[in-house]
């Protein structure tokens, strides 16, 4: 049986699809996400959370201002680490989401578990 007569093109990985920059504001770590957060790139966000946990940085803000896209794989990263972080008296607070990104979080009820703010400055203030 021949189901697939088209041979796919080789695709070179472009990790510039997604980028994370970490900055620190006193004891609060801020992750700035940029690009597309999907099943391929979510591994990079996992690494960032694991690095922060290893460094015992449990007060974490994620800034979504430059994030264009998120799938359930991206949402899963937040679920994977939130319990450990809260068990260490920390939290993950989210900010600067576009309506497109917020709608995905909201549709599944994530605001029940995560604080989501419009501005970064008010998010930092919530940790103080």
């Amino acid at each position, binding site marked *: 049986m021949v*189901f697939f007569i088209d041979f*796919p093109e080789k*695709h070179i990985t472009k990790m510039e699809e997604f980028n994370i920059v970490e900055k620190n504001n006193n004891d609060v770590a801020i992750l700035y996400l940029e690009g597309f957060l*999907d099943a391929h790139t979510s591994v990079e966000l996992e690494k960032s959370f694991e690095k922060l946990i290893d460094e015992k940085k449990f007060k974490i803000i994620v800034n979504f201002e430059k994030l264009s896209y998120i*799938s*359930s*794989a991206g949402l899963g990263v937040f679920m994977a680490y939130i319990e450990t972080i809260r068990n260490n008296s920390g939290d993950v607070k989210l900010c600067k989401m576009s309506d497109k990104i917020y709608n995905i979080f909201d549709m599944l009820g994530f605001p029940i*578990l995560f604080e989501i703010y419009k501005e970064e400055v008010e998010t930092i203030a919530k940790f103080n």
Partner: protein
Amino acid sequence: MQNLINVNSVLENTAKISIFSSTKNLIQVRNFIEENAKKYLTDINIINQIILSVDEACTNIIKHTYKFEDNHIIKIEYYKNKNQFIVKIFYNGDAFDPNKRAVPDMKEYFAKYKVGGLGIPLMKKFMDKIEYLHSVNDFNELTLVKNI
């Protein structure tokens, strides 16, 4: 003659892409859907819902059917008719009907800090119909329908 016109019309409103079963190719799939959906749809929210649903479907196939083996082929086709934008995903492998997967209770999900299993709920929320067909030689056809 009328039939011929209809056939041509259908052929003009379809296209396909094949990818290897790697998550690094999801961006190709999203670009394919976006590029083609924009030919017919103006509501960016609807377009984004279709893109995300197809991404979730392909991710599930790569993750659950192929266990991240990247040497399998997934074919994605779209069809646009008067009232619907339809995406069909063809692949070989074990049967998995997303319609038979229960949608999680999100209160319990968050209370127990569960992880994963949100792709199908997103697909079900965003698409108007999901059809699944498993046939001989483990041939699978997953159809996502968005009314427009």
